[in-house]
């Protein structure tokens, strides 16, 4: 099933829509990114419930992050996170060398300024997934050379 393609088309259309309606209402870029991130949050929140219905309880935070990097990423993006780094103090960096939502955009530095738009939804997706697993976080993304990108997860201790 070519779900991935369908989701990518929908994702791109959503981004176009959010930015087009921003033009009319004269919203800044930040508001659009927040809107996209919030949509991702809702989706991630619901999705993770479905994914973890039958999985065993997570031992600790690192276990949760490993789940995100392996099972969650594979189910959503058909591949795993390539590299996970942590400082063991609540900061995790997830590196994806060939991020599916950026591969169609460019293979280098062209359109770099547009890349954040395509990462906002996924940041929300991760944040939403984590939140429903009981982990409060802030997720940001950075990209220097497409299609590689890094997602930074900062765990918030309540």
């Amino acid at each position, binding site marked *: *099933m070519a779900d991935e393609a369908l989701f990518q088309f929908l*994702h791109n259309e959503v981004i176009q829509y959010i930015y087009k309606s921003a033009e009319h209402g004269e919203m800044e870029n930040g508001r659009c990114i927040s809107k996209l991130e919030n949509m*991702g949050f*809702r*989706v991630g929140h619901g999705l993770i419930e479905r994914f973890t219905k039958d999985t065993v309880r997570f031992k600790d935070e690192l276990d949760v992050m490993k789940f995100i990097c392996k099972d969650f990423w*594979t189910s959503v993006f058909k591949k795993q996170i390539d590299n996970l780094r942590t400082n063991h103090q609540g900061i995790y960096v997830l590196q994806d060398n060939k991020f599916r939502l950026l591969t169609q955009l460019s293979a280098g530095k062209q359109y770099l300024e547009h890349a954040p738009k395509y990462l906002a939804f996924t940041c929300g997706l991760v944040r939403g997934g984590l939140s429903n697993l009981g982990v409060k976080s802030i997720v940001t993304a950075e990209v220097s050379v497409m299609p590689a990108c890094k997602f930074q997860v900062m765990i918030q201790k309540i």
Partner: protein
Amino acid sequence: MSRQSNRTTDSKKMNSELFTLTYGALVTQLCKDYENDEEVNKQLDKMGYNIGVRLIEDFLARSSVGRCQDFRETADVIAKVAFKMYLGITPSVTNWSPAGDEFSLILESNPLVDFVELPDNHSSLVYSNLLCGVLRGALEMVQMAVDVKFAQDSLRGDNVTEIRMKFIKRIEENLPAGDE
């Protein structure tokens, strides 16, 4: 990673859930942005159209379907190949008009509406209207102008979901009408 092996069928379902949930988030956002359901319906159709004009290329690249000889063949390809490929369902093609230019796609289940209930204040919302736009856009790229609309919607109380497609004319020019 031994869990992975019995998850392969699950992961296909989960991907469609990603799409379903994202679509739901989109419709919610549209309802927030626009005051009335008609506007939301129009937006969904427009967005669907934009997706459709691109999706057709993806479809033609993935499937080895050649040019359709007539509208009946088109209907079969849409129901048996395209819907199966992208949404994992195979609607049935029925209710052909005597002139052979209009038919219905009957969807027993609609993956877009898993987990969805329409609240009372949105009774004229055509939730899955994106599909109409997609079909319209995709067919326009293969030189067919069609009119697509929902005749029945399981979300609004009908037993099945029925999409009515009407052939309008063959498009002669090669240039698309342009994104809206």
